């Protein structure tokens, strides 16, 4: 019961935001939840959000782990996804006949590239003790040029049936493929976190590396491992993004996604200076950001002003969720409740029982 309560308070922020956004959308038009069937696949506002946020969700999962263990953020995720997808595109274009196996092989090779990139960042952070933001700044500076050189030209086009299907819909399945891939990825991550000690180790390293070391957990290894996972996450995200777009644009692919990913981690109720984390919160946060973007589009905000509206929304959200305001609200609520109880006592004229129950209730609230 207590664990459930804790979890709910953790997820309070992202879920309340989501509910707020849904209410705004419903006020705008009651057809928000409408889903239509086009060529055997579901389309509508909700599937579009799930479709649009797929890369962001995958990157956010990796970012949560990195944030938790290394007490910093990886700002090179978009760039590393660009590099891995460049390798994927290069492999597929040079393979000649494109079958499901070439796509799979290309995907595996891009995952290996992701591991290499993760190892590069991870060694800098864990062995050389560079702060994560600075270590990943290196790749952010030079990465897009590397991707461009792998491509050899501006935006090679990925024109074959299989990648088209991965980017949109496989005939016979009711959902768009990126949604299914994301769900699969989330399930794999959930299983890994449930069956291994990764969560405990990452959290203990993030809370206090020296204490973790004294308890027999090597912080270097754990931080390195989280960066490897981040590399794989960016490879998967790059794979989905490039198949969605149908061409590899090394300049603009997933350009400012690190900001959104970090924001999703924060909206999910996680601390950005490491420690305890909640992947569920981060995932909900990522979907919330996509929902926010689409809500602003739906409300027909001018394209130039979208960023400003987004900023105002984030600020209001963070103010409402900030610890000071929360404590204040709690106190105010308690005061109102106790005064109400007092009035009730006066009115009913049964002093003893109700007074006791009233103090009991307020005591519970404080816990």
């Amino acid at each position, binding site marked *: 019961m207590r664990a459930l309560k804790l979890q709910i308070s953790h997820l309070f922020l992202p879920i309340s935001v989501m509910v707020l956004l849904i209410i705004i959308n419903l006020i705008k038009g009651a057809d928000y939840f409408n889903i239509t069937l086009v060529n055997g696949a579901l389309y509508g506002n909700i599937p579009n959000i799930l479709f649009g946020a797929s890369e962001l969700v995958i990157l956010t999962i990796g970012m949560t782990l990195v944030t938790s263990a290394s007490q*910093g*953020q990886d*700002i090179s995720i978009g760039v590393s996804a660009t590099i891995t997808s460049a390798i994927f595109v290069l492999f597929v274009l040079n393979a000649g006949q494109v079958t499901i196996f070439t796509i799979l092989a290309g995907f595996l090779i891009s995952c290996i590239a992701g591991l290499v990139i993760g190892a590069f960042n991870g060694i*800098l952070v864990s062995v*050389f*003790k*560079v*702060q994560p*933001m*600075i*270590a990943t*700044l*290196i*790749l*952010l*500076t*030079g*990465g*897009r*040029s*590397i991707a*461009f*050189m792998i491509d050899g030209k501006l935006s090679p086009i990925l024109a074959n049936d299989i990648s088209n299907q991965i980017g949109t819909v496989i005939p016979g399945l009711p959902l768009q493929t990126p949604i299914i891939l994301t769900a699969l990825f989330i399930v794999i991550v959930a299983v890994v976190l449930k069956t291994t000690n990764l969560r405990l180790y990452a959290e203990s390293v993030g809370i206090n590396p020296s204490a973790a070391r004294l308890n027999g957990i090597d912080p270097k290894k754990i931080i390195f491992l989280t960066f490897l996972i981040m590399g794989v996450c960016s490879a998967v995200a790059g794979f989905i993004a490039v198949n969605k777009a149908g061409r590899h644009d090394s300049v603009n692919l997933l350009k400012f996604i690190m*900001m959104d990913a*970090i*924001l999703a981690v*924060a909206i999910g109720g996680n*601390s*950005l200076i490491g420690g305890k984390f909640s992947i569920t919160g981060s995932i909900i946060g990522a979907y919330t950001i996509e929902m926010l973007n689409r809500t602003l589009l739906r409300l027909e905000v*001018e394209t*130039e*002003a*979208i*960023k*400003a*509206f*987004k*900023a*105002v929304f*984030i*600020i209001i959200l*963070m*103010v409402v969720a*900030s*610890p*000071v*305001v929360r404590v204040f609200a709690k106190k105010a609520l308690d005061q109102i409740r106790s005064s109400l109880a007092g009035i009730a006592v006066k009115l009913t004229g049964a002093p003893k029982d109700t007074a006791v129950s009233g103090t009991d209730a307020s005591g519970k609230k404080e816990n």
Partner: protein
Amino acid sequence: MGTLNITKAKKRLSNSNLLFIIAAVIFVLMYLFSIISFPGSFMQFQTFFDLFNLNAPLIIMTLGLCIVMIGGGIDISIGAVCGLVTMACAVLLESEMGSLWGALLLALGIGIAFGLLQGYLIAYLEIQPFIVTLAGLFLANGLLTTLHKDPINVTRPDFVALRDFDIVIPWLGTKNRLDIFIPCEIKPGVIVVVVLVALIAVLMKWSRFGRNVYAVGGNSQSAMMLGINVKRTVFLTYVICGLTAGIAGFVFIMTTGAGNIGNAAGFEIKAIASAIIGGTLLNGGVGNLLGAPIGVLTLLIINELIRAAGVQSNFQAIISGLLLYLFIVLQSVIMSLRDKSKFKLALPPWLKLPWVKDRKDAGTKG
């Protein structure tokens, strides 16, 4: 004996000073290297001054960011705020009622407004600085695009006069091919940089506020127990940072003379990198304000050198990334070697090297 030992203990450099000295040494070495490899261009004093002339806004921004980082926070909105200031000033100057002083006031006002808003949210409502300043970045970007979308070239005569105004140093300069002496020129922005560096370095080194910032960044809990008003100190760091971003925006439009959406885009990342190269740590509590200009110059000289070498544009980014990599690794190796020498002090006395023993004595007695 006692006084001698105390001076010896004092001589041990703090980590931030060590990082600062590494950055300074590397800057000098790289400049010497570039003089040797490209004597034609780098020997001229004008090349050195141009580093300042063209990048004064970045240096000013880095100064403000350094204060925030020493206080344990981070501000990634500065680049966007600077861009917003340039566009707002350009729009004001092109309109009917614009004036130079009005533009200056507007620049400072926008900077301070962003500083106040972000500082209040971070210090008093205890929201994570990254998120608040990220929202600030979005807000400034959105306001910039709502304000005006197309580039504006300011054509007011008094502003153009200010833009083209150069301070000429008659006794420094080079002769061109026709043997005509060309004196060096400095933009007014450089004066602003020098004044601000001096002012803020003094503020952080000797004022009560500066010491409070170091204490808060090092450990806000113990700073609070010492009776420091932590919230107000953090709040003020963000206000100063916003102010410097505003000044940087004004200096930016003073050098380029046009408002543009792309102005100062991505400067926040550059500023963070330069602050760290200059010896300020992201964790807070450590840093040297003089490191800010040195860090900027080190970062810039890398780019200048690559440009002078005439490398293909794609390799430019990769090589600057590689040099950054080498630099960061070097910093880290030096820091860890230093920690190791400290660690050796725990060895039994008969294993110790004589100078190490000396230092330990100094430490215990001092």
